[in-house]
């Protein structure tokens, strides 16, 4: 058996396997990607909410992309409490000023960052939210203070369309 012949075989085997692998991967990708959010799910990307009826200290929950969003009109005390917390006391340090541009309005996903339950309003050790599933406590800015959740509740993209209407997404 000559050295040359073996090399030719090797090349053919390698080339065939490589083309086969690329082909298989190309065939698998559509099967994998079909599970990602489809066009109709993505189309429901934004929601407009009328908040004119909300009084200070009230929270409403609206559905956005299948997830609850908390919109809370905070009281003076709550804002003060949220803004006076030292950064080093926080598990996930974020300034309240960055979370609530307009201090009176806190808009965030009502989804616990631990395993996705909906935290309860006005509960817990920090007078914000409390997750009943695994005991995470959030403060009046929706920041995680105690429990297994690693992050603060997420603030989605939103804007005031006019004085009474918030557009989420």
């Amino acid at each position, binding site marked *: 058996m000559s050295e040359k012949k073996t090399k030719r075989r090797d090349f053919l085997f390698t080339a065939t396997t490589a083309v086969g692998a690329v082909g298989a991967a190309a065939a698998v990708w559509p099967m994998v990607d079909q*599970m990602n959010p*489809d066009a109709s799910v993505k189309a429901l990307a934004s929601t407009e909410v009328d908040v004119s009826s909300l009084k200070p200290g009230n929270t409403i929950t609206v559905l956005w992309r299948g997830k609850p969003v908390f919109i809370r009109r905070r009281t003076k005390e709550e804002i003060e409490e949220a803004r006076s917390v030292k950064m080093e006391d926080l598990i996930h340090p974020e300034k309240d000023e960055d979370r609530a541009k307009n201090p009176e309005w806190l808009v965030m996903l009502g989804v616990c960052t631990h*395993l996705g339950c909906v935290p309860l309003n006005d509960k817990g050790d920090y007078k914000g939210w409390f997750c*009943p599933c695994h005991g995470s406590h959030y403060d009046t800015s929706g920041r995680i203070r105690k429990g297994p959740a690693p992050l603060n509740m997420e603030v989605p993209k939103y804007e005031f369309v006019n004085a009474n209407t918030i557009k989420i997404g």
Partner: protein
Amino acid sequence: MSDHDYRPKSKVGQWFNDRLPLLTLANHLTDYPTPKNLNYWWTFGGILTFCLITQIITGLTLAMHYIAHADMAFESVEHIMRDVNYGWLIRYIHANGASMFFLAVYIHIFRSLFYGSYKSPREIIWIIGIIIYLLMMAAAFMGYVLPWGQMSFWGATVITNLFSAIPLVGEGIVTWLWGGYSVDNPTLTRFFTLHYLIPFLILGLVILHIWALHVPGNNNPVGIDIKKPSKDTVPFHPYIVIKDGFALLMFMIVFAFFVFYAPNILGHADNYIEANPMVTPAHIVPEWYLLPFYAILRSVPDKLLGVVAMLSAILILAVLPWLDTSKIRSAVFRPLYKQFYWILVADVLILGYMGAMPAEGLYLLIARVATAYYFLHFLVILPVLGFKEKTLPIPLSITEPVLGGSPNLAAARSKESKIE
């Protein structure tokens, strides 16, 4: 092996068998030499086969009436319960059948742990068994989501969110699993598809499980290798078939009790409330058969490490044949292992109880101790015990301990001491 000598009596049988040796297979299964000292703990293999077939048949019939759509799933299950002829019976058998399946599989697993059935040369049987167990958990979880009640929805949310603990790609994986930004219709339809598929994967693995079993043959309560066929064995049919059949009847009485007298006792009332993405039930608790692992998940205060601990608790079983260093299989001859075995049983039961309780205060503390002990058992106690434990002398044959003073006894003892 007598298999190769088998030849069908009839001409037609011979003609067929020469082309497809199904009759040889049937003959192998009936004549299969089985240790004659198998006790009732060995009947759960047959019981589990019955459970799988029951789940497949009831599942197929339920699928003829169920509608996998977020707007209609809950109502279609109520439709099955109220309108479909015997729908209540089929659904209750299916729902309680899942619990019965897990009850039987836990007894089956703990039988293997007690008698060392996972040890050489049966490691592959054991590992296939663990894969079946994992698939059972996946099938049960997805099946629980299908009625689209509150527990279905929030159970699905919590379990799928476990994947978000994976660094960097976690969130992407969760969105991919959901097919959206939350558990919703796309999640339900894919869970239904997979729930339908998995039992058939399990069926295939069960065939491999039995095939792998038939290579070395059954372990037995004494845990020694035996000659096959010999005085120590009996043919599978009729001896084991009848024994398995009797045990199955006893098992079906328990099964029927749940189906007819307490069909909802193992479920949660919250699942008769339709799924609502705005409200989480006050206590989210998985089905009883997942509670020990749930307790392990919650006893670790870090999200990623909690998920890792929970998965490790299951996957550690796959390497058990190599963690247990003792050459002696049966706990009957391992006085120390026998005690640690029962401590482990208690530990798992305690974990199960803690999984059902709120994760706070004393409950959390006990769950943490029990979690630590669980891993200690497999990672420290078992490997060390194989070297330190003084085992009792094992008999040479199954017949020997029954007949007592066998003429071979003295010879056997002296041979054994030489090995040591």
